């Protein structure tokens, strides 16, 4: 069984000028250890597809169809609570443009620790230590500074 399998995923938006089909029947399959890149020009639907996989499209005018199987479990059918465990726990997404993709009133380290603590039982101190570890592993010079 593949790690992640997307079957016939389509996303459409109802707009004033009719229905716009942003993703039309995308299927892909990723095995454990695979590195897969999706390439396309701007506006071709790369982001929308992956947002749909994580069920992050909240627009009330969006219609998402198809199946997303994570280890055989259809993410389109699970509850919001279960989906929360998947997001940032099993599937992570790194958005472009860190200037706007991170909350401006917290430090980067705070936001990393927040995600760690959302998925594991960690004390504040341990989460902080793990954050420093992660930042140092990414060769951020002096990971401590970014806490």
């Amino acid at each position, binding site marked *: 069984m593949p790690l992640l399998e997307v079957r016939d995923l389509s996303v459409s938006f109802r707009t004033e000028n009719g229905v716009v089909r942003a993703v039309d029947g995308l299927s892909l399959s990723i095995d454990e250890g695979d590195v897969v890149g999706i390439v396309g020009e701007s506006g071709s639907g790369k982001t929308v597809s992956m947002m749909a996989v994580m069920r*992050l499209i909240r627009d009330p005018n969006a219609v998402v169809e198809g199946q997303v199987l994570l280890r055989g479990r259809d993410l389109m059918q699970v509850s919001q609570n279960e989906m929360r465990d998947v997001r940032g726990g099993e599937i992570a997404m790194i958005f472009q443009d860190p200037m706007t993709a991170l909350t401006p009133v917290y430090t980067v380290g705070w936001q990393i620790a927040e995600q760690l603590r959302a998925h594991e039982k960690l004390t504040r101190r341990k989460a902080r230590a793990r954050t420093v570890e992660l930042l140092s592993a990414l060769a951020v010079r002096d990971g401590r500074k970014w806490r």
Partner: protein
Amino acid sequence: MLRFFARRLVSMVFVLFSISVLSFLIFFATPGVDPAARIAGRNADQATLRAVRKDFGLDRPMPVQYALMMKKLFITRDLTSFVNRGAKVIPQVVEAAPVTLSLVLGAAVIWVVFSIGMGLLAAVFRGTPVDAAVMIVGLIGISMPVFWLGEVVNLLTQSRFHDTFLFSWVPPLGYTPFTQSPFGWFKSLIFPWLTLSVLYIGIYARVLRSALVDAQEEDYVRTARAKGLTERRVMLRHALRTSLIGFVSLFGLDFGALVGGGALLTEVVFGLHGVGKLTFELAAEPRPARDSRDGDVRGVLHRARECRRRPRVRSARPEGAPCRCLRCAT
């Protein structure tokens, strides 16, 4: 952090100095206006005018006048009102300040708490009847003028239902110092607080709701959701924190205006002798005719009807006697 405060403090001193110079110039250097006559009041005699000129150094250069004024305000603290029978200005303001501060601080706590609650509620339930209901309640609050609401509150708590168990605990209008009785202070201010905060609750709830709704479109809120945070955490820690920026700026402006006398109507309606009441009394001052009917709307209108300026209305006044209605007297 400490350096931030130090920097702010220094710039504050500059701002205060500039404001003092500007307001000084408005009063003392406006062309065509004799400041002595303004200070001495209406129809002052020559002796008073001379005393004012000497007292305020009006025959000396501007900077000296400014320095004299500052000395009267901060060092000797004996700035005297000629209009108001020689009342000392500084003690009056010092006496009024705690009343206004109590009123405004209490109201601010209420309006911040309630508007954040209502704004969050409306934003979380955006587009549902809950949202509409909260916003309508806010709009009603904005639409009620504070003097009317205050009078209605007084009518209910002081008169109509004062003898029922609901409002029998409400003390008569006026202010009880906190140092005298904390509970009495609270009881005497709770209705003024609520009345004053109603307007701001409405405004701030709407401001916050729109900021929260805008924040939903922000990339960092999407990131917060992608991290698998609970909806509550996304809302409170990420959307609310950043949405409060406009809220806080607005709060600074409104709070400052209220402390500076903006709560005038509330203070007058509830008989609180605060900074706003001083303003009110000053504005009401030039009426020379003071009798028991002063301030009574019916009395003023009655006299206006007798006024010489409306000859078609039959005069109840003796022939030739001066009219004392507001328009003629001033």
